[in-house]
């Protein structure tokens, strides 16, 4: 097979692409095409983002105007309480906010939406390794959504043990009487999301290992693919633990086992419990999944931002291999730091020291990545478009989130900071500040490939401007609340005199949050509007190097009209070898006199 002449495969690929006509249902609903599945994930998660945001605004309303009747929705939802949010409902609100945002937005938008859409396109495959499994991974999210919503609406009340669902609060129905059945639905929902992620994960690993285009060696893969690959590994190893723990908790609730329930507890005047369970076991199992999950929620965004920054800076990525190694280090260390969520939990103090050291060390690869991102912009040729803005915001806010993590990694300081708003500030900076800004940038960047049109720049910048200000206005003051010792998950912190004077600050944060929430309509509008009225673009609107930009926009079934062959890494911007400032991975350059001949790829 001749590598130098990829055009000769044209006919073969074409035949594959247009095998048969498909009905509407199999083309757009139960599609096995990774691009359609990716877009389905994207649209679903963007809608869920609005749901999760609305729940957050409920929480913010109560913190700014405690016990005051909510405008508009208050009368509808809680007419019984005269429009007030009850404390029970408040706990359900933040539990549900976290659940929706983590399980239905961040994880599926990264792995589900962008993982699905980008992996085959970026490695030059015509689809995923297991297309049907891929379709199922999307459709398994719906039962999960139904379970979560059943837990929130149909059961009349919601799960109210926080997204961490620590037993005994979550294990004994009488501990939180308002969420009897709801907690079961919630746990089943989490298990189903796990099934969905697991299907995606095995698919991504297999696809990335087996289906790379000729010449796409591991170290020619874009960082997005590396990140997706590492994320898939993390999911595959961590998820079974959560699933098992979830089943154990369901068994505790429904079958009378006592994995997590110790003997002799008198909860809500019920009979003393029997058994010999250990609530800390849940915390260990939960965080053994959920700490790697934090990186599942971050690494893909890191990968995508690396690709976008190199592109907008028109410059090779600074330190490609250190970037790959530091992602691998984050993933590896990510498995041995879960105990830092439990510093005050009463586990063996020696573990506190061990986990502090490993946690401090995990800050190192993050620091390396940050410096490399700045290095990537250094000496580049940049324009402030929406992609640039969101990517820069990603780096900038990730710095804040990373640095505030050091306070919590330090055990003695964590004694004070733990479970205060400082933590809330920290993870919102990482999850909203970093991940979501990365996602916003990625939506703008790959939208032309998804729909063949560009999103509106002006609207994009306005969305960025208001979101950035709103996010910082909401989340930055949380650091101060944390330092002041305001605990999380309080329906009315002002009950305690030392927090009374923080009411105005909380009101300011709520106004910022409302602004940020409204700004997301700009994104949704832009997303929908540009699908029909956006500027039409060709294959490579960003003058990027990756394989996905050699496919038509949008790519047809089977992706490539010309079988891509990869000759170099994805970041050869401004290469002196060519006239333009980009050099496609597929572009064949005749070797200079003394260079070795191009190696025949092993699999084709």
């Amino acid at each position, binding site marked *: 097979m001749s590598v130098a002449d990829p055009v000769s495969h044209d006919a073969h690929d074409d035949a594959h692409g247009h095998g048969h006509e498909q009905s509407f249902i199999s083309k757009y609903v139960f599609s096995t095409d990774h691009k359609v599945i990716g877009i389905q994930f994207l649209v679903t998660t963007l809608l869920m983002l609005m749901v999760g945001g609305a729940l957050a605004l409920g929480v913010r309303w109560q913190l700014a105007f405690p016990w005051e009747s909510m405008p508009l929705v208050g009368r509808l939802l809680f007419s019984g309480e005269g429009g007030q949010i009850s404390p029970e409902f408040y706990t359900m609100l933040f539990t549900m906010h976290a659940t929706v945002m983590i399980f239905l937005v961040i994880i599926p938008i990264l792995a589900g939406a962008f993982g699905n859409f980008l992996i085959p396109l970026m490695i030059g495959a015509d689809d995923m390794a297991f297309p049907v499994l891929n379709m199922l991974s999307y459709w398994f999210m719906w039962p999960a959504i139904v379970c979560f919503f059943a837990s929130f609406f149909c059961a009349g009340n919601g799960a109210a043990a926080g997204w961490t669902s620590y037993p005994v609060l979550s294990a004994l129905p009488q501990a939180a009487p308002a969420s009897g059945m709801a907690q079961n639905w919630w746990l089943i929902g989490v298990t189903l999301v796990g099934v969905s992620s697991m299907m995606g994960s095995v698919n991504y690993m297999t696809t990335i290992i087996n289906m790379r285009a000729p010449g796409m060696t591991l170290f020619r893969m874009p960082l997005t693919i590396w990140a997706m690959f590492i994320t898939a590994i993390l999911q595959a190893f961590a998820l079974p633990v959560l699933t098992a723990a979830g089943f154990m908790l369901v068994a505790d609730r429904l079958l009378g086992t006592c994995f997590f329930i110790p*003997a002799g507890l008198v909860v809500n005047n019920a009979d003393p419990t029997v058994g010999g369970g250990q609530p800390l076991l849940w915390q260990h199992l939960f965080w053994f999944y959920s700490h790697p999950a934090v990186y599942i929620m971050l690494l893909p965004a890191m990968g995508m931002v690396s690709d976008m920054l190199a592109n907008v800076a028109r410059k090779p990525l600074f330190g490609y291999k250190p970037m790959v190694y530091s992602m691998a280090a984050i993933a590896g260390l990510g498995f041995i730091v879960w105990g830092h969520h439990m510093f005050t939990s009463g586990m063996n103090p020696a573990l506190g020291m061990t986990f502090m050291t490993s946690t401090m060390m995990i800050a190192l690869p993050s*620091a390396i990545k940050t410096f490399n991102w*700045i290095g990537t912009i250094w000496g580049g040729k940049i324009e402030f478009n929406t992609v640039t803005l969101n990517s820069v915001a990603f780096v900038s806010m990730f*710095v804040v989130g990373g640095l505030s993590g050091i306070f919590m990694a*330090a055990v*003695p300081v964590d004694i*004070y900071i733990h479970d205060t708003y400082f933590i809330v500030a920290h993870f919102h900076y990482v999850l909203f500040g970093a991940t979501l800004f990365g996602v916003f940038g990625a939506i703008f960047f790959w939208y032309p490939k998804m729909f063949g049109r560009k999103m509106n720049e002006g609207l994009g910048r306005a969305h960025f401007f208001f979101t950035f200000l709103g996010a910082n206005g909401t989340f930055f003051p949380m650091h101060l609340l944390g330092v002041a010792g305001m605990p999380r998950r309080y*329906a009315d912190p002002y009950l305690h005199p030392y927090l009374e004077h923080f009411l105005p600050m909380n009101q300011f944060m709520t106004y910022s949050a409302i602004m940020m929430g409204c700004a997301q309509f700009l994104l949704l509008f832009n997303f929908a509007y540009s699908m029909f009225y956006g500027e039409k673009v060709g294959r490579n609107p960003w003058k990027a190097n990756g394989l996905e930009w050699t496919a038509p926009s949008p790519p047809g079934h089977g992706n490539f009209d010309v079988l891509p062959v990869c000759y170099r890494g994805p970041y050869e911007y401004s290469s002196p070898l060519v006239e333009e400032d980009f050099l496609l991975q597929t572009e064949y350059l005749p070797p200079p006199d003394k260079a070795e001949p191009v190696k025949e790829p092993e699999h084709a």
Partner: protein
Amino acid sequence: MRWFWLTFFTVCPIAAVVLCVVAPGLDWWFPGEAGSPLGERIDSLFYLILYIVTGTFIGTQIAMVYVLWKSSKKDDERAWYSHGSHNLEVIWTIVPAGILLFIALYQMDVWAEFRVLSKFPKEARKAPVAEVMARQFEWRIRYPEPGRTLQIQQQPTDLYAVNELIVPAAKPVMIYLKTQDVQHSFFLPELRVKQDAVPGQIIPVWFEATKPGEYVLVCAELCGWGHYKMGARVVALAEEQFEAAMEKLAEEQSDDGFADAGESDDE
């Protein structure tokens, strides 16, 4: 547009730093000076990290704005074709690694003093003042009768109180922390103490209130709908007043409501 965004990315970090600088003056900071010796050390560790972190934050933001400014003004020039620098990678791996390792090692002994039982102050370990039992949504306190030591098992002579823990000031005291139902967390913001109360466990906790006074006690682990209202107080009294308060509590508790004990004419 270029200047607008450059200003934007400059002003936002400056605003953040300024906010942190003025926050203590506006009382948007710690709830008072640390009221315990260990709390003071925790605070100084906090400030140490704060200075390191602020320096890093300012440094990275300046670098960011600088590279943005430099790289956005190129007109015809090409970007710098560079794949990175081995030396820089080595530098920015080793320097942060050193700093992080230093922070980690530097914190160890404060943690050990707070949590490792054998490092607790001896006088506190000998005589725990009380058992604090959290339940939905209050704190139940059990003291030994004056003159006795606290036992793990309840004693008939024990004294009880709710939502008010009386301890002697200016000396380390130890309590046994437990919970009757779900998980709670014993949080004294002013003394910088936090420890979860875990179902099925009895966890010794020590602290020292430097000055006599009232300190806030709140719950810091979600324990149900009433989590937010689980407020109580720790009252630190000078040694003699503490003993007097215990005597008074003992008297109140053994008082059967009749004026003179022992003169009952019941059959």
